[in-house]
């Protein structure tokens, strides 16, 4: 595979960093790829702006941060304004249509997807917003196998919440496939 550089951005509490960790862990533990995950965050536990970088590759990764992402995910207006300009030309920009009004066109495939609204409509709990986002991303890109994500969820998520997360992942995967053209 070619080296894939991803930036997840949003607000503290949305689960942006957790989603990044799950993706990178799936790549390393079950898809036999090399991945690193880093994060940038402030002192605030909730509401502050957060960013997590993931690099997935099949060769050694030295510098672990992402300067120009192939894939940029923005889950708030603030993170969109802050990061849209760093996307690699021809990259993939995913925004949540409820939280982000895209303003400027960048040289990227832009996908404005109603992830939050779909989660609320079909599940009714915002807690799995991040997993649905991850499913959507995988539906579009096929970065790692859904099986690998399933395995990570089984290991990380408390049993009582597992089904909820699996459902969110499935909804996201289907939605991502719809948007992958």
């Amino acid at each position, binding site marked *: 595979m070619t080296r894939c550089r991803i930036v997840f951005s949003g607000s503290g509490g949305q689960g942006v960093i957790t989603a990044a*960790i799950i993706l*990178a*862990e799936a790549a*390393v*533990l079950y898809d036999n790829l*090399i*991945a*690193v*995950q*880093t*994060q*940038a*965050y*402030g*002192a605030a536990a909730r509401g502050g702006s957060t960013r997590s970088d993931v690099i997935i590759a099949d060769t050694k*990764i*030295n*510098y*672990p*941060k992402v*300067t120009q992402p192939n894939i940029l995910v923005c889950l708030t207006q603030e993170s969109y304004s802050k990061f849209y300009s760093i996307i690699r030309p021809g990259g993939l920009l995913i925004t949540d249509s409820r939280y982000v009004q895209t303003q400027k066109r960048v040289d990227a495939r832009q996908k404005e997807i109603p992830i939050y609204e779909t989660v609320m409509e079909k599940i009714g709990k915002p807690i799995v917003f991040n997993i649905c986002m991850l499913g959507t991303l995988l539906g579009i890109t096929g970065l790692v196998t859904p099986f690998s994500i399933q395995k990570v969820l089984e290991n990380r998520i408390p049993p009582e919440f597992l089904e909820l997360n699996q459902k969110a992942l499935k909804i996201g995967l289907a939605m991502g496939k719809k948007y992958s053209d």
Partner: protein
Amino acid sequence: MENKIKFVQGNEACVEGALYAGLDFFAGYPITPSTEIAEILSARLPQKGGKFIQMEDEIASMCAIIGASLTGKKVLTATSGPGFSLMQESLGYAIMTEIPSIIVNVQRGGPSTGIPTHVSQGDVNQTRWGTHGDHAIITMTASNHPDIFLVTVDAFNIAETYRTPVVLLFDEVVGHMREKLIIPEPGKIPLVERLRTSVRDGTDYHPYLAREDGRLPMSDFGGVHRYNVTGLAHDMWGFPTDTPKVAHGLLRHLVDKIENNVNKIARYKEFYLEDADQILISYGASARSALHVVENLRKKNQKIGLLELQTLWPFPSAIVREKCLKAKYIVVVEMNMGQIRTSVQNAVEHPERVFLANRIDGVMINPTDIKNILRLIKGQGV
């Protein structure tokens, strides 16, 4: 069976290394960006019969591990700059009383409370001279998780071998970054256990009388021997003394046991140095960016290499000097205002060829930062 392949933070790699090395006792006070070490050990250490104590502050934490080590335990504390400042007095006590102990400092922006969640390598010289008085100290670091694991095991071995505190100096990036770690099978890495005295109960035991090889066998405090431990200059009984000859001998012993073994203690990695006329010297997270630059420029046929230091103190001057003999440019890459740069300048034959590529704004130094400095040095503009 427990899974030996993990996807973890650097802080957890340090925990795994410490447990592998036989850690028995942790006392600490959580602080960003080292908190995960305390958090994970609070669960893991009791599971293997060890003790975890959250103390009231870092002064107490350092004192607690010194006491626990004296009773025969392998000990660790973990902190960041502000906590490490508080530990300085008792770090000196551990040096003076020769107590094997491991202090992890996961560096964040400073001085003072600084930038808690951002990266820095500003505590390098603090680990060297943070505590007062002439002394030697051992400081080790690493840039990736397998190496964090290995230097942590090494630190425990070295602490026992030389009866001394060892500082593990990591940074926010490697501490919080997640990557793959494979934990070696037990027994694969040799462990150094406590050298205990063979002096039996009822016979005089001299806690500070060195054997011919310079090592001092210990006796678990509270066990069969009664003896004195003090931060004052002391004689072979451990009792205070101001006899010039004894004071002189003690200080020489404390410094020589480490400085005379600098090449044995030195850990480093070299990349493409054989024919390099440009040499980057780096450590910790910065070394990852430096290696990125080296591998990219090698593809463009530049003769560039990297010397990655894992032992910062005692500074491996002879090794640095020898590796840099043929270098036209030596660029020290670090996230401070040149703390290791100065040591490199003192070590090499041509200090005027030593330059600094640094960043001090809480952002990890990136490959472009380093490439720009290389271009500037060569008069190519940026």
